[in-house]
């Protein structure tokens, strides 16, 4: 906004006030310099760096020297079979994640909540947090070991009469392994939020319900579930909002060309084509396409969260 204050009044315009604020609290401004610098350099410059998605970017020529090509790379991507495949896989893996990864911690928390043996509950909880602290590389390494043709999963499969096979190379099993290992990793960790919410439920409610003759099932339906409902709804909406976003890391660790058909997602595709094959402009275009969709979905999710629960992320 243009400041046109010509008078000497101190309280009128924004800039004089800012100047006064600056003089009074110089050290605050000083402290904020490295923070602002960090965000500008490492967050905002890359945002403007995405102009290379509209260019035929050559590292030698730089952003200023490279030729402008408009939406060429977006059209290239969207008209290629890779687009359908990666978008579909991204959504499908996220939907599975939503179905299994979202519900399992809730069920686990409800089961733990019903346990009467406090010591036992504590032990199960502690053990269930463990996978969260195991690195993704190790989780994928163990998964690879267990699913190899002489691994323990195949021992089990053979016991039930199936042929031994390298499970991770089997297109039909890949998604189950991907989602299943994710559920395993975050089951316990994801339940913390719900357990903490449940422990804040009013014990008087349960007492009153018992006196009124409500059994455990009725207490679960009428007290326990309503207690976690707001937080569970918020979590669900935010998960729906991130349905197109999924990091490349796990996919890069797990997939092989044999299973690209069901494994390759947008972010792993960007990594492969953009960084490994150094098609910077193409990779940036696909990445930007994904970021824009993510932003829209998140804004929509946040809006509906506010409508439905009165709570939102911002």
């Amino acid at each position: 906004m243009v400041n046109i204050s010509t008078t000497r009044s101190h309280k009128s315009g924004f800039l004089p006030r800012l100047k006064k604020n600056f003089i009074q609290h110089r050290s605050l401004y000083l402290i904020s310099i490295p923070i602002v610098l960090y965000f500008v350099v490492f967050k905002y410059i890359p945002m403007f760096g995405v102009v290379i998605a509209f260019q035929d970017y050559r590292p030698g020529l730089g952003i200023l020297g490279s030729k402008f090509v408009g939406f060429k790379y977006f059209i290239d991507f969207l008209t290629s079979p890779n687009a359908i495949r990666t978008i579909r896989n991204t959504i499908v893996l996220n939907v599975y994640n939503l179905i299994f990864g979202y519900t399992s911690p809730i069920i686990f928390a409800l089961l733990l909540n019903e346990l009467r043996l406090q010591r036992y509950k504590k032990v199960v909880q502690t053990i269930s947090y463990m996978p969260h602290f195991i690195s993704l590389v190790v989780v994928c390494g163990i998964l690879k070991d267990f699913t190899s043709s002489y691994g323990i999963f195949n021992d089990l499969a053979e016991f039930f009469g199936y042929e031994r096979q390298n499970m991770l190379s089997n297109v039909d099993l890949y998604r189950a392994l991907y989602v299943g290992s994710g559920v395993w990793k975050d089951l316990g960790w994801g339940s913390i939020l719900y357990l903490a919410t449940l422990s804040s439920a009013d014990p008087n409610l349960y007492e009153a319900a018992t006196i009124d003759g409500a059994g455990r099932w009725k207490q679960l339906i009428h007290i326990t579930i309503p207690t976690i409902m707001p937080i569970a709804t918020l979590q669900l909406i935010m998960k729906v909002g991130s349905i197109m976003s999924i990091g490349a890391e796990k996919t890069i660790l797990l997939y092989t060309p044999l299973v690209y058909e069901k494994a390759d997602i947008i972010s792993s595709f960007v990594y492969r084509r953009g960084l490994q094959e150094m098609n910077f402009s193409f990779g940036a275009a696909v990445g930007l396409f994904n970021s824009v969709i993510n932003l829209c979905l998140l804004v929509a999710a946040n809006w509906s969260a506010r409508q439905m629960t009165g709570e939102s992320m911002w």
Partner: protein
Amino acid sequence: MIERRTVSNRIFDAFNVILLFLIGLICLYPMVHVLFGSFSHPKELLNHTGPLLRPMGFITRGYEIVFANPNIWVSYGNTIFYVVVGTAARMFMTLLGAYVLAQDSFMLRKPMMIIFVFTMYFSGGLIPDFLLVSKLGMLNTRAAIIIPNLIATWNMIILRTAFRQVPASLGESARLDGAGDLTVLFRILVPTTKATIAVIIMYYAVGEWNSWFPAAIYLPGRRDLHPLQLILREILISHSASGNVINQSLEFVDQDAVEGLIEDVVRYCTICIATVPILCVYPFVQKHFVRGVMMGSLKE
């Protein structure tokens, strides 16, 4: 809690105890398998089918091979460096950011907040990040692992919320005594919010210990700077490379007894030395988890 001891209640309780036992077992078993496997004799391990209930035989050859591998030591050192320096630098920046954002007297507080929060929802993406790091000349330097991820915006906002819950009078009275901003931050705010800070330090440290992706893209030509997780990835995931790593280490141990079967055992040993340190620590900081997760679910 008053409860009635009906038959169906008891059946459910028994079922629940068993089900949770099984879930706990599934959570625990993979690491137990790896631990037992790491001490097993490779031949017996190969012939064994089904779950490992104890080490098959007992050898420490696998660990000898791992410890004789200079790559492991170098990468272990690198990881410790990234964890210590990275966590310290991140925590310092997060403290500064949270401090200025918590000051009512700071006029740019709100616009800055918007500018920072926006970066949580939109980013340039992998390729522009990579090009920036390479333009800045940080490719293949340790700085590339630490500086581009200096602040996790979410942690900064959590800490800001914690700072704002500290009574303002504490800081004001210190200021009247002539304390500057940094004194207020480190002498008053940090001690009063140390539980929150502990959780954030834990997040940063565990995240750094387990991180491999930035190193994979920013340190392509400097194996000597690779963190443990990246070496692990070579050993566990990309098998062609794993041969190299393990064969390199075999040179340091007598080859005759090894028979090439020991690769699996070596893999298990590597997982153990990379994972056991963290698994030994987490049960002791457990009480902070609830706090950490609840902080994350709060807004403002």
